[in-house]
């Protein structure tokens, strides 16, 4: 293995998340063949790649939804490899999973309350709710409705808002643009930028490379379970390989 092609320089920051030689397998199927990546405090890092490249598997391993076969994951220097998912939220990591993971049998309000499941500070929870309503006013009108009655775009807004209800320092997002109309995608990505400016670091998985690399400080290109290329978002966006393979140019 020759290792990934590294394009451009990375602005150094305090490391928040570090993944080293991560391997994930589902039975006999290998999804990740030893990938390494890092995310600095305050950064948006994009992970792009085709269907089946292993993007979701990467997020699942980081958030404890699955146990990696090998490798090491550290959050703020603390080893979190193989820890159970529910123990990671208190460390400041929230994961809005692939397919949004909305509890469709619960109301919008209950979904949001579950995002704050571990919190006891009523005032803080309330102000975070207000923040979400500021981002997505439609949620306020839908509070008592069953989440299953929301449109796809509204569900994605709910998924992001719910993840923010734990007041995370790191947000893992899996394809927030999937299946949404362009205006809604634009709105959501605008808000992701806001959220990031408020100090939340984001690890963003996307198939929509253009969107993701535009937002991201730094990006990784995943190909069949390996990192093929890394570099600053804008640099990757300009590279011929990425253009050809992921931007259809």
């Amino acid at each position, binding site marked *: 293995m020759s290792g990934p092609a590294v394009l451009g320089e990375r602005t150094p920051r305090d490391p928040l998340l570090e993944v080293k030689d991560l391997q994930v397998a589902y039975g006999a199927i290998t999804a990740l063949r030893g990938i390494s990546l890092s995310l600095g405090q305050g950064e948006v890092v994009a992970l792009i790649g085709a269907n089946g490249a292993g993007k979701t598997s990467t997020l699942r391993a980081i*958030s*404890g*939804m699955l146990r990696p076969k090998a490798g090491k994951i550290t959050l703020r220097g603390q080893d979190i490899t193989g820890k*159970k*998912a*529910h123990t990671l*939220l*208190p460390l400041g990591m*929230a*994961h809005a*999973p692939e397919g949004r*993971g909305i*509890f*469709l*049998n*619960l109301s919008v309000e*209950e979904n949001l*309350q*579950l*995002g704050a*499941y*571990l919190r006891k500070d009523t005032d803080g929870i309330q102000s975070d709710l207000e923040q979400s309503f500021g981002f997505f006013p439609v949620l306020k009108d839908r509070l008592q409705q069953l989440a299953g009655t929301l449109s796809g775009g509204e569900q994605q807004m709910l998924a992001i808002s*719910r993840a923010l209800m*734990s007041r995370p320092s790191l947000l893992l997002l899996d394809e927030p643009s999937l299946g949404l109309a362009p205006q809604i995608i634009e709105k959501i990505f605008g808000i992701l930028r806001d959220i990031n400016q408020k100090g939340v670091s984001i690890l963003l998985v996307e198939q929509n490379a253009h969107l993701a690399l535009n937002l991201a400080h730094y990006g990784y290109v995943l190909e069949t379970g390996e990192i093929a290329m890394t570099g600053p978002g804008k640099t990757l966006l300009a590279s011929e390989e990425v253009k050809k393979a992921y931007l259809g140019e």
Partner: protein
Amino acid sequence: MADFIQHLINGLAAGTIYALVALGYTMVYGVLKLINFAHGDVMMVGVYIAYATAKQLGRGAQSSLLGVMLIFLVAMGGCALIGFLIERFAYRPLREKPRLTALITAIGISFALSYGFQLDIGFLPGAAPRAFPEIIRPTEWLVIGDRDVVLWNWQVISVLIAVGLMVSLQYLVFKTRFGRAMRAVSYDHRTAALMGIPVDRIIALTFMLGSALAAGAGILYAIKDTAVQPLMGLYVGLKAFVAAVIGGIGHVPGAVVGGLLLGLVEEFVVGYTASTWRDAVAFGFLIIVLLVRPEGLFGRITAEKV
């Protein structure tokens, strides 16, 4: 008319008991997608715990208010513990295995309890039926006409206790943080864990709760039936399972409605025909409901999640 009212009373009294047991099936199915076939047998164990506690208390104390409360508490607590142990050591290790494995385990536990209790060694009671102590002395509360309609005190008390337990459960499931977590786990336990919900603990508590309700229901059943025997769990459990499926398994209010309907339908058909029809009616009713609504009265057809 008097007939009708009498059957209504009997049907409701029986139905609330089915409903309580059905709630345990439905809650456990909700969080684990497992038909806990041992549920009825846990109920039977609860009845024996109540039996032993009543014997310990002796004739006078067992029918005092405090005594009855103590009997319920001990039996429900004991069953919660048994439910905890079954979940922890039998079902949890199989959680990620194919569902059939857990189902067969459940049937195994069911048989182990119902046949194990027929042994006559140590604390085990043996196969012979025993008379359940009169912890509520039967008196007639309301007599209409020339004993055309008789309302017994135990019927009223039984319905009150059952309704009280059901209302509390309803509150717990739909209005509290624990209930919210339980419903989230039931819908998608992987995502629930991402909310910081300790999924294992929620499942264990659900088991304990369902088992405690079964003990409560079992005591009410034993008061009505006046007898205890080790196979009672198979019989009552099966009926309650039918009630849960009729209501839509996994649906909490559905279990209550299913239980009441089953109690009423059985009572009316038996009342106007012959008691030999009772079980045929129960399963016939199940078949009809499933033909018309395969998901049960309140259940929703959901695509299997990937």
